[in-house]
């Protein structure tokens, strides 16, 4: 398994290099650069041209790329025009917030998906199954941003059970239990809203996988052995049905990135998704570039994680 993981990590490197090139070229294709717009219009254009030369903006793209990537490798993602601080510092704070929000969302997603999927698959074509499938259809059809707004209005505003913005109550000492509880409290509603929508695909996957596995020949073998119904389900059907869920896990992460852009803006949660949208609106290019690169890396890491998890649970994938 270690050999497999190592090989998988090595194949990831060219993917990331390619991603960084694409991100860089796209950033370069955006109109304007650091010396347009924010400069006093009375300055002599030849001075601007000199500055441009000095900053290396007239170099061919691959030299500029080499400069930029060596900066990135040293943790230097440039300066944010808007916040007047290094991008890496800015992103780091948001990254931590988004990370915890995502973890909570994933936990809730699976807490909902596994019991619903199992019920629906095991007792398919019953009323319970029909209700669960009905829910998944609604989940597929409802746009996340509308659903999140409704949740915010009902639970945040109308019932006033949850805070409607921020990631922590101001004025609490970091590191205390209160601080931690306040963080979780702030994350709960956004995470729940996202999980309720993103879980439906997992429920559907699990359901159809169980129905499919039920008809496999080895289930018949298990029954012919005299295995009780619960044994057949727990030892044979369930384990085989969870495989695609493990495979799906990494893509769930890419889904979270997309979801966080909506959720964090609606709930005013200071994470990467909110920063991303703000930076685009404010044309804070260095932040946008850094975030696109990070999102890309997370997606690649997600699929890496999927493959590794799958290689742990499925012996057929392991290379000996």
């Amino acid at each position, binding site marked *: 398994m270690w050999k497999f993981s190592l090989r998988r990590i090595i194949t990831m490197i060219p993917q990331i290099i390619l991603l960084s090139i694409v991100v860089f070229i796209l950033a370069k294709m955006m109109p304007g650069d650091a010396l347009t717009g924010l400069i006093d219009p009375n300055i002599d254009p030849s001075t601007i041209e000199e500055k441009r030369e000095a900053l290396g903006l007239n170099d061919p793209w691959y030299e500029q790329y080499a400069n930029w990537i060596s900066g990135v490798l040293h943790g230097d993602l440039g300066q944010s025009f808007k916040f007047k601080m290094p991008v890496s510092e800015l992103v780091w704070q948001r990254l931590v917030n988004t990370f915890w929000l995502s973890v909570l969302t994933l936990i809730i997603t699976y807490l909902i998906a596994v019991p619903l999927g199992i019920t629906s698959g095991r007792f398919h074509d019953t009323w319970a199954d029909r209700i669960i499938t009905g829910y998944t259809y609604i989940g597929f059809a409802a746009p996340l941003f509308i659903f999140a707004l409704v949740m915010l209005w009902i639970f945040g505003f109308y019932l006033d059970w949850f805070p409607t913005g921020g990631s922590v109550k101001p004025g609490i000492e970091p590191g205390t239990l209160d601080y931690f509880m306040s963080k979780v409290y702030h994350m709960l509603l956004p995470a729940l809203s996202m999980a309720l929508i993103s879980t439906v695909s997992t429920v559907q996957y699990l359901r159809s996988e169980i129905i499919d596995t039920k008809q*496999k*020949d*080895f289930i*018949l*073998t*298990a*029954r*012919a*052995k*005299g*295995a*009780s*119904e619960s*044994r057949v389900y727990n*030892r*044979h059907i369930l*384990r*085989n049905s969870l*495989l695609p869920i493990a495979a799906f896990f990494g893509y769930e992460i890419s889904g979270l990135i997309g979801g966080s852009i909506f959720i964090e803006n609606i709930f005013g949660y200071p994470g990467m998704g909110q920063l991303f949208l703000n930076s685009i609106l404010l044309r804070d290019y260095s932040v946008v570039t850094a975030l696109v690169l990070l999102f890309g890396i997370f997606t690649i890491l997600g699929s890496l994680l999927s493959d590794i998890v799958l290689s742990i*649970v*499925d*012996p*057929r994938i392991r290379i000996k």
Partner: protein
Amino acid sequence: MSEPVLKINHLKTSFRIKDEYFAAVDDVSLTVNKNELLAIVGESGCGKSALAFSIMNLHTRAKIEGEITFKGQNLVNLSTAELNKLRGKNMGMIFQDPLTALNPLMIIGDQIGEILLIHNKNMAVNERKQRVVELLTKVGIPRPEHVYTQYPHELSGGMRQRVVIAMAIANNPELLIADEPTTALDVTIQSQILDLIKDLKEESHAGVILITHDLGVVAEMADRVAVMYAGQIVEIADVYTLFENPLHPYTRSLLNSVPTTNEEQSKLHVIQGVVPALQNLPREGCRFGPRIPWIKESAHEKNPVLHEVSPGHFVRCTCYKDFHFPHEDKEEKQHVIS
């Protein structure tokens, strides 16, 4: 001397299509004796697998009526929990396709061990492992200790079928049902697997039901043969009688469709038509009638029953008396009936 292990009386297994039940196994009665290998032959779709599955009640949605007497109990009336005590312990099943019959995520040792565990919760872990290795050796698997820790995908088809057999015989069952055990295997492996089943039968004196469509296999293995057509037994006899003196038109057509090497043959005999679909089965008259249209209507019985023509040799319908292959004047095997 012949001690029945299994007695089936008027078994009827029906499947629901839309809102109606159609019998795939229609009024089948037979017995399997101790240390006897009963072969059930027939075309695809004639109900032989449905019959085998009915015995262990492995159908998920089927209506089973009649009597299946095994160890003094009528299996048809047993609950799943009661049945589970017999499945895997007193009766074992060998499946058609060894490639899909094993759980891909469990090591071989655990899969065979499971059947021991289910029926004997008190067996020590070491003892169980030892027994599994013993079983693997018995079915002719080399390096059993190593195979114990392997997954099904690491074994060849023949090896997997040996594992399935090891599983079926783990608790020394009195009845072994083999549902086309060699269909998915290549010819050289086929004969090895068949020899293995035969050896195991000789050793344990179990009754064996072998479902097959391969008449070569039947000739080699069986003590008695039941020929099934469209859910019914059309002829049943011991193997010598059946091959020497086949009576029912279906049996004769089947035997006539076997290619032989010692005769010049231009064309292989083909039985006209196919087994009709379940919902279109003729429920009255001779079911094979439509496939031998050159035999006149009056030769058939209205409600065909099994006639005992000689001790232990039963034939359904009277049409066997008038049956002949078309163009009998020429050499009979040269013809395609159509």
